[in-house]
């Protein structure tokens, strides 16, 4: 198969970029794979895909280089095809609209894959007849604004498939969006096996890692650790990551007198060696669109105590087997989950072994296999045979009609609502 990914910026740093390169590199072992980056702002990518993956860009914004296109008048004009309700809208322009449209109108591929909502919208509407159209959702439907959801309702019926990172989000898409004929499937993010030995479970450290952002609820973790200290003062906690909550968390640590037990470690990259220094992972978020750190910790041999928040943790952790799910927002529940594993060495070691084994399902090879099956099924349905091609065309025509009908209905609704409140 010839597979073409469309990525916001393959030269930057971020979870989607890394995940896309992992997938593209693994698929490139068997298939012809390219990654098309809308933007290029630097010479070399930070995360490089395998040499078998072709990487190219559509708009060059490398300053002080001959190819720089930031002075193009169209680069200053607002985008029309890329939806204005998308988080990255400000970075898109009439120039990106045109380049993306040209790319999609001529793309030589069996499968084109979009990696964020705005690009999925353009991909659904502008891809030439022929290639299978796949949209990836790396966040969640619930995290999008009402305007963006409405935009997606209009465009997504023209996709052949939509992938989410969790079953919960796939259910949300099936329930809340009408996507007839669109194959909605959850495919988890992949995490490679770390290049170092797993933790041996003897270190008396709990480890957490993530941005110091309110959604991570590290305040609850610190308060829970106050209870842990009361019972097990020999155990301590490291929190890796940077962010705006740092001063607040520091103050909380000082107020509780936890400065000998809880440490704000700052950002760490790579993170694997830091997981390997601990024996238990902790996640106390109120929301995790997937839960990448849980998988990372498990791959390093740590059972994870995590809040059972939407959407990912409950699909990653087998409660009581390879980790422990605890109540969202509850300090006592987090503390007792941690203490359960701290106080029972056998249980912790058993869970650590299970975590290592169970996390293998997130290996890039396994995840790529799932995509491969999905892509093959879709190309068989929509590409090769005459009936398949017919079906694909019919589906898309119907999708286009449905999409506009929904967009109209949503517009009508919002007009009504406005009228009502006015």
């Amino acid at each position, binding site marked *: 198969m010839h597979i073409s990914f469309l990525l916001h910026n393959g030269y930057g740093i971020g979870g989607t970029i890394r995940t896309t390169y992992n997938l593209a*590199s693994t698929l490139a072992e068997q298939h012809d794979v390219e990654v098309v980056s809308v933007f290029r702002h630097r010479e070399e990518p930070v995360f490089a895909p395998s040499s*078998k993956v072709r990487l190219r860009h559509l708009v060059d914004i490398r300053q002080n280089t001959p190819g720089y296109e930031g002075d193009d008048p169209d680069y200053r004009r607002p985008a029309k095809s890329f939806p204005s309700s998308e988080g990255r809208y400000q970075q898109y322009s009439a120039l990106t609209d045109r380049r993306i449209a040209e790319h999609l109108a001529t793309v030589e591929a069996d499968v084109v894959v979009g990696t964020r909502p705005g690009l999925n919208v353009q991909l659904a509407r502008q891809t030439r007849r022929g290639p299978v159209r796949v949209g990836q959702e790396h966040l969640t439907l619930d995290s999008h604004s009402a305007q963006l959801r409405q935009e997606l309702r209009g465009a997504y019926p023209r996709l052949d498939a939509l992938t989410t990172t969790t079953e919960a989000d796939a259910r949300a898409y099936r329930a809340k969006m009408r996507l007839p004929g669109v194959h909605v499937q959850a495919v988890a993010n992949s995490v490679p096996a770390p290049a170092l030995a797993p933790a041996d479970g003897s270190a008396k450290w709990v480890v957490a890692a993530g941005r110091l952002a309110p959604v991570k609820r590290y305040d609850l973790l610190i308060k829970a650790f106050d209870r842990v200290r009361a019972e097990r003062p020999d155990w301590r906690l490291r929190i890796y990551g940077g962010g705006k909550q740092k001063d607040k968390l520091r103050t909380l640590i000082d107020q509780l007198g936890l400065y000998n037990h809880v440490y704000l470690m700052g950002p760490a990259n790579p993170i694997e060696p830091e997981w390997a220094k601990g024996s238990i992972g902790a996640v106390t978020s109120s929301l995790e669109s997937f839960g990448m750190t849980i998988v990372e910790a498990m791959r390093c041999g740590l059972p994870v105590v995590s809040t059972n928040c939407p959407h990912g943790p409950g699909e990653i952790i087998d409660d009581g087997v390879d980790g422990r799910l605890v109540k969202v927002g509850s300090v006592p529940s987090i503390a007792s989950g941690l203490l359960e594993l701290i106080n029972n060495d056998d249980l912790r070691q058993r869970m650590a072994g299970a975590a290592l084994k169970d996390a293998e399902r997130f290996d890039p090879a396994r995840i790529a296999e799932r995509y491969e099956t999905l892509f093959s099924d879709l190309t068989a349905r929509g590409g090769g045979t005459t009936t398949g091609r017919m079906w694909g065309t019919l589906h898309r025509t119907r999708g286009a009609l449905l999409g506009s009908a929904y967009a109209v209905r949503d517009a009508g609704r919002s007009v009504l609502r406005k009228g009502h409140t006015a």
Partner: protein
Amino acid sequence: MMSLATPHSEDQQAGKDTLPPRADCVADAAGGLTFDVTGIPEDGTHELLLRSRDEDTDVRLPLTPAGGGRLRAALPGSVELPEGRWDVYAHTAGAEPRRLQPGLNDLRALVDRDPGPGAERIAVRIPYVTKHNNLTVRSWLRAPHAEAGELHIGEGELTVRGRVHGTPLTPSAHAELRGRDGAETVVEAEVTVEDGEFTLTVVYGTLTADVWDLWLCPAGGSGPAVRVARLLDDIADKKPIFAYPRIRTERADGALTVQAYYTADNDLSVTVANAS
């Protein structure tokens, strides 16, 4: 093996000689380090070069093939590496040394290191990543050594618990706070000894506005003075991580703030300032 989008992708390590060579470091509990270097051709004669930032000193270790395109060098804890910062290079005979970039640093053996009471000399080497993403090793070499453990920051005093290595800790031990303001002021502080651990108590009321360095005299006045430091873990720069609350204390001649902190060398000091 499949190629993945990590800094360890085989594609990055092999072939493309535009990429700088990098080293994975593994630490052992005795203070030794093993460097696994990738990104330089296996043929030729190679050395791992540690170049001191503070003085004109090089330490050279042979780099030998370790399989899988890797070259390995070992720096055992028994090899002397003077205290300071050491930039790490790969040096191929007949070429300029090339600065190494950090790979995976597996420092788990350094976490909660306990060299035991019998250790005569404490050798600590912690590899870390510089601001410019290069690999540097921070080294400490102390005999004797006073390792700070838990601190307790009270209303009127702070206490430091810790252990002494390389010299006996006796019941006559005391501590000194040495002022930095140039007057060579020394304030004595009380030390209690229990189960081989010292507890040192700093009474805020005895201090004036200055930066005070903590020294332990494990055998009392006649014995050696040992700088109190925190060295026995995996963290190269303690100050931002081992942070302690700043306390406000009222005195007859005005209010003061007191804060314990680790210096750039991970030695323990106390800053006392007039409260604004």
